[in-house]
């Protein structure tokens, strides 16, 4: 039987990639953020996952507004990064796990979700940065990838309740997978931040703390807010917390917090890192 070892959550601000590239991890600005990762790395070393099911949002690399899926599941044998418009060095590719992807798709549709299925999918910094943070010295990623995309770009967005239900359906898929993989669930993005509008620079530690305090024991608490309320509380890009909510659903009914780090600002963002284990 496959084993679900736990869930890892982190922000995915593009500037983190720049800081890694420049070797700024120990500078006063970045240290409080990067100091959150040794415990994540130790935990992953102990848990040795070989598959990662990652919930994230595309930032205009793989999807454009011509076709914008609410939920998209990658089912490719390989996932590559590509130029996101800034001409930065490319991130490492991921090996996929098409059989598990299709198993997840089967479960989602059986549970009356209607995902877009992607046999070709580019992955952007939202997926690559969490792995750069978790496995800084890896020549290649030690896990195969099952990426699940959630639309956080174009409203209407799926509700928090719907995203939690999506994650719970993914959990049912993982629980019935007959392989012997060790699976980690990952949620990326957030927490509170707003890049656009006169309110650019808005962050809200109260809401972030509410999310972090409830994610393990009572994730349904995060579904009490509508999307518009989440935008008001967390900022226009703070809605990326939907990725966290879905990933929490995929972890299963009960969870306990193993590690937490929270620091702001990182760029324009309140950055958080969290590890949960199933109970």
């Amino acid at each position: 039987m496959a084993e679900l070892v736990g869930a890892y959550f982190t922000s995915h601000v593009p500037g983190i990639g720049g800081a890694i590239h420049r070797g700024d991890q120990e500078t006063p600005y970045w240290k409080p953020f990067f100091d959150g990762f040794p415990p994540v790395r130790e935990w992953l070393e102990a848990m040795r996952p070989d598959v990662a099911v990652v919930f994230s949002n595309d930032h205009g690399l793989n999807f454009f507004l011509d076709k914008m899926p609410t939920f998209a599941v990658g089912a490719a044998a390989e996932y590559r990064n590509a130029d996101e418009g800034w001409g930065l060095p490319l991130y490492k590719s991921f090996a996929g796990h098409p059989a598990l992807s299709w198993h997840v798709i089967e479960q989602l549709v059986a549970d009356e979700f209607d995902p877009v299925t992607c046999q070709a999918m580019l992955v952007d910094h939202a997926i690559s940065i969490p792995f750069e943070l978790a496995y800084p010295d890896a020549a290649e990623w030690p896990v195969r990838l099952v990426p699940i995309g959630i639309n956080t770009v174009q409203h209407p967005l799926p509700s928090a309740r719907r995203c939690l239900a999506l994650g719970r359906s993914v959990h049912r898929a993982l629980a019935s997978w007959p392989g012997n993989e060790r699976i980690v669930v990952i949620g990326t993005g957030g927490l509170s931040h707003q890049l656009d509008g006169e309110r650019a620079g808005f962050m809200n530690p109260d809401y972030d703390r509410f999310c972090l305090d409830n994610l393990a024991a009572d994730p349904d608490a995060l579904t009490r807010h509508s999307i518009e309320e989440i935008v008001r509380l967390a900022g226009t890009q703070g809605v990326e917390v939907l990725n966290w909510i879905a990933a929490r659903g995929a972890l299963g009914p009960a969870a306990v917090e193993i590690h937490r780090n929270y620091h702001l600002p990182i760029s324009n963002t309140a950055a958080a890192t969290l590890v949960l284990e199933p109970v």
Partner: protein
Amino acid sequence: MPDTLTAPPPTASIPGTVLFDGSAAQKGYQLNAMCFSFNERANREAFAADEDAYCARFSLTPAQRKAVAERDVLGMIAAGGNIYYLAKLAGILGLGVQDIGALQTGLPVEGFKAMLLAQGRGQSYEQSVAEARHG
């Protein structure tokens, strides 16, 4: 529960915030399509070489063309621009997210950065903005 968790009814608009919805997505399609094209280096170079010609290729509306010409980020958003795509244009123009934030809030870049750092010291967003504006 802190006040900041008590959200008003969802019909009330959020100050300083435009939701990128179906209406904005329709209005902004050409501008966002141009920005999406900037994932390709050759397209970034073509824009830099002849901005007018490149914007014409994507049939930008007059409001979109004006906002791009004036580097008016709020104007781009009002014309349907989405920040995830506009970020690619910002890269060509040499603007980071703090530059973009400064342009939108009317703060100097250093003031915008100070406003972010003040929030990191535990000040509220409102207080941090007020201090950045008035010292």
